[in-house]
C-alpha cells in the first residue's frame, strides 16, 4: 500500500471505531445521481489518489488510480489511437475514473460496444475493514475467483473505495459517419432493431422529436457501404460530433428543456423492441431514445409508481435519473429489487463493508 492508501485505510478504520460513515467523492460530478447523500457522512476525497499506473497500448489494457481525471485518461488513450469504447459521460470537468466506474454509466456506443462493466478487467479495492483487495487482473481473460471487479461498475461506492482499476481499451475507428432520418418514434424503433440484426457498423443512435440519428464507425469501406445501404441524409462531421457529445453529456436540447422545466428525468432501460404505447400510456412528456431503442429517457411528472410499473411491464426497469433530493429520497432513485435479490445485496454489502461505512443508502436505503 502506498502512503496515501494507508491514509485512506486509516480513515476507514477511524470511521469504523467512531461509528461514522464516509462519503466517497471523486469530483462530485455525479452528486445528482442515485439516492441523496447521508447528511452526516464525512467526505473521503478519492480524487487525491490519481495517476496512470501502467499503460501498454499493445496489451489493450490501462491501469489507473481511482482519482485519475477521466479527461486525462482519455487524452492519453487518444494520443495512442485508442479509446474507452463505452464512451462514458463526464458530467463535469474533473470527473474521475473511479467515479466513472462506480456510477457505471455508458454513452452512445453502449448498445453495440458494451458498457463500463464489459471493459473492467480488474480492480484494487479498499474494503470496509481498511484492507486492500485485488480482483481480476490486467489481462483480457480471467476466471479465477468471482468476478468482483466487474460488479464494481454501478456499485456507487457501496462496496468500497476503488484504488485502482484496469480497463480494456480499444483502437479508435478509422472512419465515422452520422445519418439523419425523419421518422416517427415507432418507426424509428422498428428500423433500429432491423438494422441491429444486420452486419452494419452501428456505433450510436438517438431519436427525439421526429428525428433519428444513426452513427456508423469502423473501416472506411464498411462505413461507406453501410451508409449507402441505409439511406438517410449524411450529417456534416462537425455537427455530428457536437450531437453525439451533447447526448453523451446530456447537454442536448431535450435534457436542457427538462432541466429548465424542472421535470424529473426518468431513465428507462427496456428491451430494444419495447412498444411505445406501454411506456407512453404511463408517462406524459417528452421522450429521447438511445441505444437502438433500449434506453428511453422521459422528462415527466407522471406518478413514479406508474412509471416503474410501465418499465417493469416492458421487461426493464426505471431509474429516477435526475430529480430533487426529496423526490429521490421518497420514491428511491433506483427500481425496487426482487426480495431474494435484495437479500443478496444486503449480505454482499456486509461482506465488503461489514460496518456500513461507505456511502450508506446511496444505492438503496438498506445498503
Amino acid at each position, binding site marked *: 500500500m502506498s502512503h496515501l492508501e494507508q491514509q485512506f485505510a486509516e480513515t476507514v478504520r477511524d470511521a469504523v471505531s467512531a461509528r461514522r460513515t464516509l462519503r466517497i467523492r471523486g469530483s462530485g460530478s455525479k452528486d445528482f445521481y442515485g439516492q441523496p447523500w447521508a447528511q452526516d457522512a464525512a467526505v473521503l476525497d478519492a480524487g487525491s489518489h490519481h495517476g496512470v499506473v501502467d499503460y501498454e*497500448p*499493445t*496489451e*489493450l*489494457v490501462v491501469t489507473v488510480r481511482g482519482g485519475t481525471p477521466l479527461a486525462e485518461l482519455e487524452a492519453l488513450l487518444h494520443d495512442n489511437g485508442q479509446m474507452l469504447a463505452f464512451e462514458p459521460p463526464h458530467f463535469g470537468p474533473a470527473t474521475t475514473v473511479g467515479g466513472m466506474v462506480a456510477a*457505471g454509466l455508458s454513452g452512445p456506443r*453502449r*448498445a453495440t460496444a458494451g458498457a463500463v462493466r*464489459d471493459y473492467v478487467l480488474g480492480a484494487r479495492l479498499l*474494503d470496509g475493514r481498511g484492507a486492500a*483487495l*485485488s480482483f481480476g*487482473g490486467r*489481462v*483480457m*481473460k*480471467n*476466471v*479465477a*475467483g*468471482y*468476478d*468482483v471487479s*466487474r*460488479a464494481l461498475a*454501478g456499485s456507487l461506492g457501496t462496496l468500497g473505495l476503488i484504488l485502482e482499476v484496469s480497463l480494456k481499451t*480499444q*483502437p*479508435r475507428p478509422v472512419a465515422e459517419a452520422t445519418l439523419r432520418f425523419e421518422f416517427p418514434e415507432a418507426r424509428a424503433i422498428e428500423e433500429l*432493431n432491423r438494422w*441491429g*440484426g*444486420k*452486419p*452494419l457498423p452501428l456505433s450510436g443512435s438517438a431519436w427525439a422529436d421526429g428525428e433519428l440519428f444513426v452513427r456508423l464507425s469502423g*473501416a472506411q*469501406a*464498411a462505413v*461507406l457501404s453501410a451508409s449507402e445501404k441505409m439511406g438517410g441524409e449524411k450529417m456534416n462531421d462537425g455537427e455530428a460530433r457536437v450531437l453525439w457529445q451533447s447526448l453523451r453529456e446530456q447537454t442536448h436540447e431535450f435534457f436542457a428543456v427538462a432541466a429548465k422545466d424542472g421535470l424529473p428525468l426518468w431513465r428507462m*432501460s*427496456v*428491451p430494444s*423492441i419495447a412498444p411505445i404505447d406501454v411506456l407512453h400510456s404511463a408517462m406524459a412528456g417528452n421522450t429521447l431514445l438511445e441505444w437502438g431503442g433500449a434506453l428511453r429517457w422521459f422528462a415527466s411528472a407522471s406518478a413514479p409508481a406508474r412509471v416503474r410499473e410501465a418499465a417493469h411491464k416492458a*421487461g*426493464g*426497469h426505471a*431509474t429516477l435519473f435526475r430529480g430533487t433530493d426529496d423526490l429521490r429520497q421518497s420514491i428511491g432513485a433506483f*427500481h425496487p429489487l*426482487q426480495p*431474494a*435479490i*435484495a437479500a*443478496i*445485496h444486503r*449480505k*454482499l454489502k*456486509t*461482506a465488503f463493508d461489514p460496518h456500513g461505512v461507505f456511502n450508506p443508502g446511496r*444505492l*438503496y436505503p438498506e445498503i
Partner: protein
Amino acid sequence: MSTLSPKIDFLRQADVVGRLSAILPDDALLYRSEDTRPYECDGLSAYRQLPMVVALPRDEAEVQAVLKVCHELRVPVVARGAGTGLSGGALPMGDGVLLSLARMKRILSLDPLSRTARVQPGVRNAAISEAAAAYGLYYAPDPSSQIACTIGGNVAENSGGVHCLKYGLTVNNVLRVRGFTAEGEAVEFGSEALDGAGLDLLAIVIGSEGMLAVTTEVTVKLTPVPEIARCVMASFDDVEKAGNAVASVIAAGIIPAGLEMMDKPATQAVEQFVHAGYDLDAAAILLCESDGTPAEVEEEVGRMRAVLEAAGATAIRVSNSEAERMKFWAGRKAAFPAVGRISPDYYCMDGTIPRKRLGEILRFIAAMEIKYGLRCPNVFHAGDGNLHPLILFDANIPDELERTEAFAAEVLEKCIAVGGTITGEHGVGIEKINQMCVQFSPEELALFRELKLAFDPDGRLNPSKNIPTLHRCAEYGRMHVKGGVLPYADLPRF
C-alpha cells in the same frame, strides 16, 4: 462444508432417493453405480467420484423441488451440463446429488428483431447459433467444445472461444440468467434490457462455477453474421517472432475476429488428424481472421498481411473460400482431440498472461519439458494472451500424472508471476484450487467465501471447489515448500 468422500453411505442414499422419487419419475433418478458411472467425472478425467444420486429434472419446477429437498436434508448439490468442463467443476460428491440439467434443452424463444434468445440451460452452445442462422444471426462465444457444451456450463465458466477477442466472452453476451438458490428460491440476474437494477449480480454469477445458483434459463444476445470472413495463416520460423507478431497486429490498431497460435508440435499433431494443410516446417503458425463487408475485409486482410510480413512471417496463406477458412479453423478447434490421439492422456492448462510475456512463458515451458521429461505442445488464444499448453502423459505409467501436475503447477504460478492469471476460461474447479492460494491473499479468499455465503448461506452448492479454505492453503504452502509431494492428496484417484 462437505468434503469429497469416495464411500457412498447407502442408508443416506436410500433416504434421499426416497424423497426425490416423490418429485421425479423413475428414469430421472439414478443411484446404482452402473447408472451413475457416466457422471463420475467431467472433461478432467483424472478426478473421478461416483455421486450418491443423479437427478435429471425436466423443468424449473422439478429443479426447485429437488433443491428444496436437498436443502432440507442438507445434501450438497453439484450442477452439471454436458460435463465437458476441464477443471473438475462438475466433479460429483460421494455424499451429494449431481443435478444434471441436460434434459432441459429447449430453446424457449428466439426473437430476430430484438436479437435475443431465451433458452434452457441444457441447450448446446452450437444449437443456439444453428437456430439463429435462419435469421442471419448467431451466438458469438464459440468454445471449441461448442457442439457438446451447454449454455448453463458456459455461464458457469464464463467460457470463451476463438472469436472472443472481438466479440467478447459469455459475460459480454448474456443479458439475463434465471435460476434458483441452494434453498430453492427463484432468482433472476440481469434483465431483458441492457442492464438491470442494483448491483451487477449477473457479472458475479457468470463464471461462478455453479457455486452461487443453479441456472435454469438464460437470455443470450445474438449477433449478426458478418457478410464474409477470411482467415490469414502465417508461418514463423521462431515461436517468439510469432508472439511478437501478435503484438504488432494489435499495435496496428487491428482487432482481428480471431487471433490464434499453434506451435510446431501442436500443428503436427493436428495435421495428422484434420489434414488442414498446415505448414509443418513452421516453428509456429498464426491464424488471424478478418470479418465484415467484402471491401472491409479486403482492406483489413491487406493490413494484416503487411504487418505479419513485417513481423517476419516466412509464409502467408489467405483463405479463398468459406470451405478453406473452415479448414484452417478445423485444425485449431480440434487441437485437443488431436493431441488426445498422439498421447494416452493430456493435461490442458489455461493460464492467461500479458501478451508481451509470451516469449518468456514459452521458454519457461520448454525448460519444464526437460525438467519433468514430458512433452508439451502449445495452442493459444494468442490475441487474448490465453495459453493452452497441453502436457502429454500416460496415466498408466507410475508417477506421470504427478509429474504432470507438478509441471502444470509451476507453469500456472509462472503465469501469476508475470502478471497473469491461472485460468482464462476453464475455471478453477477442483483442479487449480491450490493455485488460488498463490493468486489471492487470505483476505481476498475470505471475501470470496463470504460472497458465496451471501448467495448460498449453508455452502451447499458445489462446495469445496474454486475457493480454497485457508487451511488448505496452509497445507499447500507446506507441500509446496517440500516439493515433489503429491498435490490434492486428499482426492481419490482411479
